[in-house]
């Protein structure tokens, strides 16, 4: 090659803030253990955890279903950091043993060489705090991001006060910031039992627990004021200010999916789970997945989801306001005021969640399907499980200003063009391509693109 196309990515640098032999994402038990083990074996290890969260994420229910039940103390960064460290004593131990620890730091992307990303010189992890995004280099990664909540789209589920088991646990034990008083718990398995025990242990009033799958209605206008459930054909009601959906959790497979690790449908382990060996090694060299991110316990999710989704009005995707009926009819979003194809969903070939998203917008909103992935998947998987809906960076929604702060190679800026930088492409195609034309496509600044 004479010299590489200057408007291409070839030869561009990606400035790194630091480099580690081993990065561990998620400072729960599994992550702390992995980071300490890495440090003990002489690796330069970084352990990151997104808690305390960018306060904007609580309202978006990312990464858990927080249901607006965390108090204002979560906005005080320093105080929250103290609480996180207090809640996870292993963090200090890890630090003493030489692990570099970064809390309040979200992993939003991972960039590795592949058939369409040949120009990436080393493996890179995208990190961000509240102010800026940056990159670090790594050789090995352990993903220990845990599990997230499964929302059940019963009427009223989007009211403030409806939480997931993970959100409830974080509010109670990690942030010490739970603002509810009287709670109802949904679920019959270990997850629900733990939530109940934790609630009672903290002196909360547990109004009731609905253990067996039953139709539910969450009551309230501005926020939760009660729960109605069906039992023996009759509706019953109880007053409460919080409903904890503790039927099931699902492995957080965002990073493994982004990296291209094999992920399989495995209802015995929470649904989509990375394919790992006994040591947690994924299909990708040097990438391990541990703890609940690698698989959770089996639960009664399907029965509960079926009950919730039976109603046409069930609001499946809260961000984009897509109901179960809209999904079945493959209806375009309301602002288009149009109908879907006559046969609805059946009009498509084998169901594909990403394709259905493109047409209905279910899962296309600010929470990126964190609250509706399982519902949409259940709706599409009547005959056989639909494939995993894709995850993309940024894995946490980052303000433009934060992402914009990522350090950039000056050569990348100098050669930035809107589209390719092929001068002849922008000149009349009914005339022969001129040899030394000026490039008039979108260009940042400066002179002609060197060809």
């Amino acid at each position, binding site marked *: *090659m004479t010299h*590489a*196309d*200057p*408007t*291409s*990515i*070839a030869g561009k640098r*990606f400035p790194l803030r630091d480099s580690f032999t081993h990065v561990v994402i998620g400072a729960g038990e599994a992550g702390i253990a992995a980071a300490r083990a890495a440090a003990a074996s002489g690796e330069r290890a970084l352990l990151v955890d997104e808690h305390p969260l960018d306060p904007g994420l609580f309202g978006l229910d990312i990464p858990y279903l927080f249901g607006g039940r965390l108090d204002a103390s979560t906005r005080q960064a320093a105080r929250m950091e103290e609480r996180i460290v207090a809640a996870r004593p292993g963090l200090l131990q890890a630090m003493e043993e030489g692990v570099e620890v970064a809390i309040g730091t979200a992993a939003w*992307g991972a*960039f590795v*060489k*592949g*058939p*369409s990303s*040949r*120009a990436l010189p080393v493996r890179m992890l995208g990190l961000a705090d509240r102010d800026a*995004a940056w*990159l670090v280099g790594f050789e090995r990664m352990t993903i220990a991001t845990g599990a997230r909540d499964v929302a059940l789209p019963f009427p009223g589920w989007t009211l403030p006060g409806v939480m997931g088991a993970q959100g409830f646990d974080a509010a109670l034990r990690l942030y010490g910031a739970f603002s509810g008083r009287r709670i109802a718990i949904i679920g019959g398995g270990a997850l629900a039992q733990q939530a109940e025990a934790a609630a009672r242990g903290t002196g909360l009033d547990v109004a009731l627990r609905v253990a067996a799958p039953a139709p539910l209605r969450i009551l309230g206008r501005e926020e939760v004021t009660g729960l109605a459930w069906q039992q023996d054909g009759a509706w019953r009601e109880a007053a409460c200010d919080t409903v904890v959906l503790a039927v099931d959790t699902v492995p957080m497979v965002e990073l493994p999916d982004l990296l291209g690790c094999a992920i399989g449908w495995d209802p015995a382990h929470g649904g989509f789970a990375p394919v790992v060996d006994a040591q947690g090694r994924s299909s990708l060299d040097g990438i391990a997945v541990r703890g609940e991110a690698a698989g959770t316990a089996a639960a009664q999710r399907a029965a509960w989801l079926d009950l919730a989704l039976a109603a046409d009005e069930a609001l499946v995707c809260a961000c984009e306001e897509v109901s179960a009926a809209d999904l079945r009819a493959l209806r*375009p*979003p309301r*602002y288009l005021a*149009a109908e879907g*194809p006559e046969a609805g969903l059946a009009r498509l070939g084998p169901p594909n969640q990403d*394709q259905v998203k*493109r047409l209905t*917008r279910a899962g296309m*909103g600010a929470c*990126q399907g964190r609250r509706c992935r399982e519902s949409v998947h259940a709706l599409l998987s009547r005959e056989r499980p639909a494939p995993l809906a894709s995850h*993309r*960076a*940024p894995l946490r929604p*980052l*303000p*433009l*200003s934060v*992402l*914009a702060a*990522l350090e*950039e190679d000056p050569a*990348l800026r100098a050669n*930035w*063009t*809107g*589209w*390719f930088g092929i001068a*002849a*492409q*922008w*000149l009349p*195609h009914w005339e*022969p*391509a001129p040899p030394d034309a*000026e490039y008039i*496509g*979108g*260009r*940042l*600044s400066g002179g002609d693109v060197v*060809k």
Partner: protein
Amino acid sequence: MIVIIGGGVTGLSTAFWLAREGHAVTVVEKGIVGWEASGRNGGGCTHPYSPLFREEQRLWPMMDDLLGHPTEWRPNRIKVALDEGQLDRLWKSTRLATDQGFAAEVLDRAALRDLVPWVGENAVGGILWKYGGHANPQRTSQAYAWAVERHGGRILQHTTVRGIRTRGGRAVAVETSAGEIGCDAVVIAAGPHTAALAQPLGHRVPMAPARVEMIVTEPLPPIAMGGVDGNGLYGRQTLRGNLAYGGGPHEWIDLDGEATPRPVNTPVMAGLARRLQEMFPRLGHVRVIRSWGGIVENTPDGRPILDRLEDPANVVVASMSSVGFGLSPATGRALAQLVLQGRCDFADLSQLKLSRFGNLPLDWRSRQGWDALPV
């Protein structure tokens, strides 16, 4: 039977125009319709440098009705300049359209701010293009496919074409992963895979595949004219309100067999955020929710190849060289004419023939600096 290889917008639109006139068509798509570049692009419908520009502009306002499903097409574009150099280049491309009788208006800072409340003091001005527009690529791709079927055409998804069988200088059958389909004519509109499908027929179709990427933000209240871009970005505010923008360095790649490589994102996505914030300084707080990539092909001069071959004489080759979404309504109509009558009667396609690359050196990619780096 006319067999169309590739269910992107080029193939689907061709099938639509043919089926609409009552011809028997089958579109063969290895995955899902619109899954590659056609469903991943910026949705721009403004190509004044193309001989199909006038037809592009004429057809878009009718596409929702013609296809029977919404494409989210909206007219006009607003271009934002952050310095005089940007403004100067914008006027140069504007002149391509105004020379053809289309109208454009100068926007001073205040007028720009009235139309686009997100711009800041750093904007020197802009141009309102009273032509062009934008549409939703995913909805448009699917709308074409449903319209093809409504007119009696057939779409085979998850079916891969493996070869084209010829006899006596004509294509007689298309070999697919689901068996052979007899044919009277073939259109190869397989995006970056077009070259590999044409090669066994004895034709070198020079093209280089590349990966490009885009980002999208959470929705904002829609402004009246959402087709706003500049500062090295192309894109739009969607009708839902999200800002969807792309631009910046592409990556030249190689194909490995019949699959399309997974188009991942790179830290270039942060560069997109940086330029979006430069253009709209009031929007620093707006969250980026997703990014994606797509694979496009480029010919050596960056211009389409729309050509009916001489041998086999019933095969049409169509590559849009990375600028094919917006033109697709017109491209499909032109290609349908090439299939049926061997020439297009509404646009001069004489410069878009394959033969212009007759003397191209074999190592043209290297010479242009377009080689893929090793994996």
